[in-house]
């Protein structure tokens, strides 16, 4: 699975992930505190500048991540166009685009390993509640490892179906797919136990 981080190395890659995260939280909160169109226009312009600084490749890949917002922007514009308060609609749209772009900026300029470091730090207080941060990290790694495995399992099943029928498999492979996945999970659990299990997993 490919992470969403940027193909271009930027200066922000070297900033500590925790600082970026704190900065993002504060600015996002700020966006929701005011409805001044001028304020939102300035912020949006600043965000666009941040995206443009590392070059064309970075800018375009940033734009690609915003595509999902398009239908909502159309709805907002139609809605406020019809009710004759386009300025208000534009404010909401600008805030939406700025908020999502700023968060995407963090995702694009932070490596998965740096993000994991933040997770480790944030999970520390959870140790009091009995959660071993190591178990959390292992489960995240398991998710990342199992997702492509599940996808290829699904592909194999639908190929096997197509080899025997000229119709599409559709929902008929869902049950065998889930059963196979559960059996895989049982094997992984057994393997983990055979290697010493999670109870005594070393903490730090």
């Amino acid at each position, binding site marked *: 699975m490919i992470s969403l981080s940027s193909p271009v190395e930027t200066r922000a890659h070297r900033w500590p992930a925790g600082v970026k995260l704190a900065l993002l939280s504060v600015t996002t909160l700020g966006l929701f505190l005011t409805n001044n169109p001028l304020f939102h226009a300035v912020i949006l312009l600043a965000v666009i500048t941040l995206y443009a600084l590392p070059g064309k490749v970075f800018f375009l890949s940033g734009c690609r*991540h915003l595509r999902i*917002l398009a239908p909502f922007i159309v709805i907002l514009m139609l809605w406020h166009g019809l009710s004759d308060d386009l300025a208000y609609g534009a404010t909401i749209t600008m805030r939406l685009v700025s*908020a999502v772009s700023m968060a995407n900026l963090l995702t694009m300029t932070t490596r998965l390993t740096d993000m994991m470091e933040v997770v480790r730090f944030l999970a520390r207080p959870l140790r009091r509640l009995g959660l071993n941060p190591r178990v959390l990290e*292992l*489960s995240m790694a398991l998710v990342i490892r*199992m*997702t492509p495995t599940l996808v290829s399992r699904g592909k194999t099943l639908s190929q096997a179906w197509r080899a025997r029928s000229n119709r599409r498999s559709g929902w008929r492979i869902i049950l065998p797919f889930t*059963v196979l996945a559960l059996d*895989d999970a049982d094997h992984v659990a*057994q393997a983990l136990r055979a290697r010493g299990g999670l109870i005594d997993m070393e903490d730090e």
Partner: protein
Amino acid sequence: MEKNVVYIALFAALVAALGLTPRIYLGFGVPITVQTVGVMLCGSMLGAKRGALAMLLFLLVMSAGLPVVAGGLGGLGMFVSVTGGFLVGWPFAAFVTGLIVEKWRGPSLAVVATIASMVGGILVMYVFGVIGMSIVLEKTLLESTLLVLAFVPGDIVKAVVAGTLTAAIYKARPASVLSRAN
């Protein structure tokens, strides 16, 4: 312990894998993702607590920047986007679905899991989703509800799929349906 952790990770991965399947278009042109079937299954299969944990794990992996949401999306931006409320609602949806399946032992599992998926995977999830939309788009709760109403028929179909599937898996692998394991 190992089985619980691996199952939680498996269902988080299952929801991620479902996000990679192509989008299905309903008769009237509304795109649906099968990802929410995974959320319902998570609750009905794992039970309340583990189901919610699996969804929290999913959101954590998503926040770390992996493209696990339908359409190759991910990252922290998802939370402040229009549909962010729905994502926040996933752990709660799985929790409520799981709680109903755990406690209500009367009718057949297929019926219980279907109704549980409707309550958790539709009602609870939409409450969070609609509140999220009304904050981001600055619309009233009623207006936001109108915007998402078109997706309800598809979600009812998904709840029936999740319920039927849970019962079928219970027949094939009873020990794997942790919500009914005791």
